[in-house]
């Protein structure tokens, strides 16, 4: 079973904080990888918050292919940060030759296009790069979005942290929002794309558990949107459902939970909004999940969200202090990063509940 965690902070924090959150939970995962998505960036990326940031791991050839494509499309390089990796012998890491984190400016002809158009361009660009690199196994493109950095690697999380010098706070990497996970998807093939968190057009998501309606979800999502691809992990479907409900259908956030874990018919019938809930359950029956899962998501506005499956078969706890709200599969992770918090304020999200953390760190809770 995966362990997942996230931190939303008033002040920029270093990724080592996320490691501190995840490593105490290692008995619950298999130390097969480490992945994180950082948003609302500080450090070296602070000056370029509005410039799309490409996160990529690739071979030398892959880097050249990507560069050629971006140049041809008219993207203009603004800044590049290359992690100074520690090539230490004995590290349990299956590293890629190159890691590229590069900010771009939009092609000149796109300068006057709407924000929505630009967001479609960013998706199309990422998908195109992915396809180019996938052909000969030249690399992986994780995200291409302003103010979003993705790092994923296969290996022992501690070794990965050592390799990328994540324990050392050089000031380069910092963010106010981090979502992390310490396991590759060992249910299926070990593929970098299968490691959550996943990212799509401003939506970040990681999940633990088993999606028993994976086939149903996948068969439905494949025809819904060009960005719903890969499916290397059964948890990607949660991200695509989130994206579909909020971005494509433009429904209010509370309906995400109604889509993935609809209320039983008997309960719907008792509700004032039974008509709407029934229509949703009917129409989106193939996006339901029905296994054990906990979800942590970040919305395009920066809000962080957590909810569970309808039977509460996976754990999650939320702790907080004045500067930070932390979501964790296990309380031992919280204890490590927020040892002095008021534990009476801890929230154990229940099966009907959605918890949303605003950018002001206000914690909103509601029942579906």
């Amino acid at each position, binding site marked *: 079973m995966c362990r997942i965690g996230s931190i939303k902070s008033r002040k920029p924090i270093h990724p080592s904080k996320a490691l501190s959150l995840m490593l105490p939970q290692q008995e619950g995962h298999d130390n097969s990888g480490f992945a994180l998505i950082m948003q609302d960036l500080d450090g070296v990326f602070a000056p370029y918050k509005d410039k799309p940031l490409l996160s990529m791991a690739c071979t030398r050839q892959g880097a050249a292919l990507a560069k050629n494509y971006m140049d041809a499309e008219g993207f203009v390089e603004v800044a590049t940060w290359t992690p100074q990796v520690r090539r230490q012998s004995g590290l349990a890491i299956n590293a890629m030759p190159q890691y590229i984190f590069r900010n771009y400016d939009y092609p000149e002809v796109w300068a006057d296009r709407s924000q929505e158009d630009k967001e479609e361009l960013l998706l199309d660009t990422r998908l195109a790069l992915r396809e180019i690199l996938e052909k000969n196994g030249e690399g992986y493109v994780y995200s291409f979005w302003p103010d979003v950095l993705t790092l994923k690697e296969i290996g022992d999380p501690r070794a990965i942290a050592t390799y990328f010098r994540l324990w050392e706070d050089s000031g380069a990497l910092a963010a106010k929002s981090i979502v992390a996970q310490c396991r590759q998807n060992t*249910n299926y093939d070990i593929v970098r794309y299968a490691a959550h968190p996943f990212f799509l057009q401003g939506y970040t998501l990681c999940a633990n*558990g*088993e999606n*028993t*309606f*994976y*086939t*149903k979800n996948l*068969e*439905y999502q*494949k*025809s*819904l949107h060009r960005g719903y691809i890969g499916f290397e992990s059964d948890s990607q479907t949660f991200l695509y459902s989130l994206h579909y409900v909020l971005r494509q*259908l*433009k*429904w*209010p*956030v*509370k*309906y995400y939970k109604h889509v993935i874990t*609809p209320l*039983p*018919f008997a309960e719907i019938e008792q509700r004032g*909004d039974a*008509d*709407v809930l*029934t*229509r*949703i359950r*009917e*129409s*989106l*029956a*193939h996006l*339901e999940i*029905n*296994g*054990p899962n906990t979800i942590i998501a970040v919305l395009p506005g920066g809000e962080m969200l957590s909810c569970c499956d*309808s*039977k509460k*078969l996976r754990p999650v706890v939320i702790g907080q202090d004045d500067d930070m709200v932390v979501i964790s599969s296990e309380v031992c992770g919280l204890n490590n990063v927020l040892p002095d918090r008021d534990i009476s304020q801890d929230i154990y999200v229940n099966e009907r509940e959605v918890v949303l953390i605003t950018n002001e760190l206000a914690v909103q809770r509601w029942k579906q």
Partner: protein
Amino acid sequence: METIVTQELSRTDLRWNIDYRPERCTMCGSCVAACTINAIEVGVERRSMTLSRAAYPDPAREHMSRPVIRQRVSLSQACVGCGMCAKVCPNEAIRPVRNPDNRFAMLTRCLGPAKRGGRTNLNAQRTLDHIIVGRISQMTDPSLDSERHTFDIRAPFGRILLPEHLPLAIEGDSLKQIDRTPPVNWIYPLIFSDMSIGALSTRAWEAIALATAYLNEKCGLPFRMCSGEGGMPVKLMTSDKLKYMILQIASGHFGWNRILRALPHMKTDPAGVLIKIGQGAKPGDGGLLPAAKVAPHIQAIRGVPKATLHSPPNHQGLYSIEESVQKMHLSLSAAFGFRVPVAIKCAASATSVSVYNNLLRDPYRICGGFFLDGVQGGTGAANEISLDHTGHPVVSKMRDCYMAAVRQGLQGQIPLWAGGGIGMTGNAAADAFKMICLGANGVIVGKLMIQLLGCVGNEQGRCNACSTGKCPAGICTQDPRLVRRLDIDRGAQSIVDYMLTLDSELRKLMAPIGNSSLPVGRSDALVSTDRAVAEKLGIVYAC
């Protein structure tokens, strides 16, 4: 040696022979009285025996006449193997025995095309028995407790819209429904399939209706029953129990005069309307009610004279799928104020996917369900040649339809209901569950219902006398003396008991795969031990 005319019909030519033991027989006559086919009669045999009548051995040869029960040698009164004689005999003196060397199929054709009821006797293969629920929750996710968890076992009957077509508007942080949507009823995923009053005796039909109402009102299970073609009693149509009924309209439109006249007096809407285009047991044929079964009350309900009632093979005036949608779906929907879902039932066929595609793409979005009836479906009367040699297996065809919808992102928009052989071996829950995992929203059962009422027919040629009006179980007959053989309450009870068990068994299948709502289309839950089946259905092969 010209003592034998070999063309003469003999006992050994018949499908069933009577095994009679005179030494056990008390000549009570019950078997003869019980045989509805008149396949046995009381006769007299000449016997030659050596007897000793004195107190000491004094053997003497005697010739005597003895009354016996014997089988009639007649094509029209040939024993059908129903076993009522054995059932009624107090001494186990008589029983029918299958005659594997019979010549019946050749000889009976001198009477013209053979007609019978039941289901195909040639294609009784069981695809579903080559499929196992093989994806069990072990470690990766927990199995559920079938006794403790709550399960949402419901299926849609009605047209479902894609989310972008839903009339929802955002008000504040909520959605509001701002317009009507097509009616959808969420019902139990097993419908008591369409068998008419006429095909069934009034008692049999009433027993199923009684069980339906009981399951709804006492057990909280929303089972629905389809009327079959031929209408319903006005009393039922004007009662609140109508909400449990799906009205059927078939190509003969039998019974619809009374239904339309009852419309203004209906207190509640029916659960749905099912347009029958075709039937799996005899695709391409219309309904058939032999004159023998057109009793006075059937004449009254249907408004017909006493004659064999043939429904046409097609709905007159319908020449295309588009027309069907525009004429029948719209007019039937309009008749009930667009409050009642209208679905369509077709015989499974090589063309089923084309039909389903057309319905899915219909701009009116009005078809509330696609019912597919496979070659193993039952019938009250059909030509044997149709029963045994026409039709299409339903499992792969339903799966084809589902996958056609998947390829277009339209799965679930028109609910798929499948029937024809569901519960053939008595395990309807397993059959239903596998069909659901393959993409069906629910299943329809007919033959199983009458078997629960006491029908002894099977697909090995036993009985199948539904078309004769001489049903020995009082189920498929209108003869008042035979109808009284069926105890309505006991019949209804056996249906209720079976369905309660089926509900438990469905939970026992949902629980180990960790699902509390129906796994429609969850084909990954299944494996097949037959490579060809696995390949055709797109599921994993396991051995």
